């Protein structure tokens, strides 16, 4: 008799053991996959495979398993869609995971982690940033946030949805929104003012 692992514990495992490698995974996928527009969908499919597999048997080395799954998925796709003829060895070479992608990532110090979070926060657009500050950093309720900012609650809720997406991109993808015109102007003014 096998016991199905409790879904909430796989969820926790997934967040702790798989998501931290997202940046490296994205670098790998982007390097190999011909169509950059499809890379996010690819990532999703890799995650699904990893999650469903882990629900049956927990992999011993999560990071290696993640990359192996990504590689296999791309091979399957490439074969099925006949984008690239797989018989050529040089094409298979491209799928090999480079040593610096698979080896344990340089551990970010806590200060760097915090800094990244701060940068991600500051990269949010104005309204979104205000909402996220009050809701997440100050811990204000949605109702009170709406009152403070003179917004409808529904609008606060939408901004939070946007904000948490941007946070995920920054925390896992390690990509903050590139500096906008406004930000660049602000930075120049701060420096000169």
């Amino acid at each position: 008799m096998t016991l199905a692992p409790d879904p909430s514990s796989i969820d926790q495992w997934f967040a702790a053991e798989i998501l931290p490698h997202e940046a490296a995974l994205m670098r790998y996928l982007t390097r190999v996959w011909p169509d950059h527009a499809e890379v996010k969908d690819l990532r999703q499919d890799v995650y699904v495979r990893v999650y469903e597999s882990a629900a049956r048997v927990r992999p011993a080395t999560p990071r290696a398993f993640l990359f192996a799954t990504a590689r296999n998925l791309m091979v399957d796709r490439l074969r099925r869609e006949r984008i690239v003829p797989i018989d050529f060895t040089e094409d298979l070479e491209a799928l090999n995971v480079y040593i610096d992608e698979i080896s344990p990532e340089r551990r970010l110090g806590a200060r760097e982690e915090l800094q990244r979070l701060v940068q991600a926060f500051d990269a949010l657009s104005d309204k979104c940033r205000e909402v996220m500050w009050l809701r997440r950093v100050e811990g204000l309720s949605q109702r009170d946030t709406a009152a403070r900012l003179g917004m409808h609650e529904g609008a606060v809720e939408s901004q939070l949805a946007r904000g948490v997406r941007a946070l995920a991109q920054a925390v896992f993808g390690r990509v903050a929104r590139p500096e906008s015109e406004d930000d660049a102007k602000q930075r120049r003014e701060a420096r000169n003012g």
Partner: protein
Amino acid sequence: MDSERIEAIAADWFAKQQSGQWTSADQAEFDLWLAAATAHRVAFIRLDAAWRSASRLQVLGAGVPEGVIPERRSWGYSLLRRKQAAAADVASDAISRAGWRSSKSLRAIAACAVVAIGVTIGVQSWRPSAEEHQTAVGGMDTVPLADGSRITLSTDSRVRVMLSANERRIELEKGEAFFDVAKDKSRPFVVVAGDRRVIAVGTQFSVRRNDEDVRVVVTEGRVRFANDQDPPAAVPLQLDAGAIARATAGSVMVREQAVKEAEQLLSWRNGFLMFRDTALTEAVAEFNRYNQRKIVIADDAIADIRIGGSFRVDNIDAFLWLLENGFPVRARHQQDAVVLSAR
């Protein structure tokens, strides 16, 4: 469906859960969406994990006066670079050594860093926020808390939630609530019911209160069950998963069972009441908590009849049918009540 679309929907669900207006109908719909595809689940986990990790910002936010939203690049960066906050440097080096992935220890040490920063630049501590949540008779509601914990309120229940920098405190004023507590070693989760308190770190349990009668059911992890009337040196009772503690004014009785059996007492979360060899008076009292139309037992003779079975909380009729057909009981329907007597 493409990942962008799924992520957008996941974010909408997440924001709705944080809104403070989450109903059990929402929960049901959300559960359906989550179960519909692993891609949904994974997208949600990712957002949830990012949200949780942002709690570290609260440490840096402590350096900003309450009610002020700091300008970009005017917060955090200077605190992180500041040479005077030597204590913070020590703390964050300690965090680096501990490893970045363990957010539990990070928060614990970050909490120390808050104290250090507070000392050097005279900062205000977090303002504790108090929220009240209540359900009507027959109602049920799940409230997600800012720390990631969840409270599921049963029928006719009321709690007051106060999360502060040092403590997560819930006052159970009446009724019953089930607590799914997020781990946070720096802030114990305390449920206060009259003189009694249930203290947890990361676990699942329910507390029911009827004035001074308190019942605790633990379904995961471990809690400590303390009595404010006890002398300070007294060691609180420790309850593990499967334990059911019933406390009255002066005493506590603990029964230990398999978790599955303990969970039967919490079947109300799914809208069911489960009875096993339960006295009729007790079963009736349970039903009455969920329904405006009360059942009254008019004959002592039938009070001790033992019944078993699983009933939807609002389906009194099924319950009455069982009584009339399986036992020597007659049910007379009056305007606002149902009277049970011996047949």
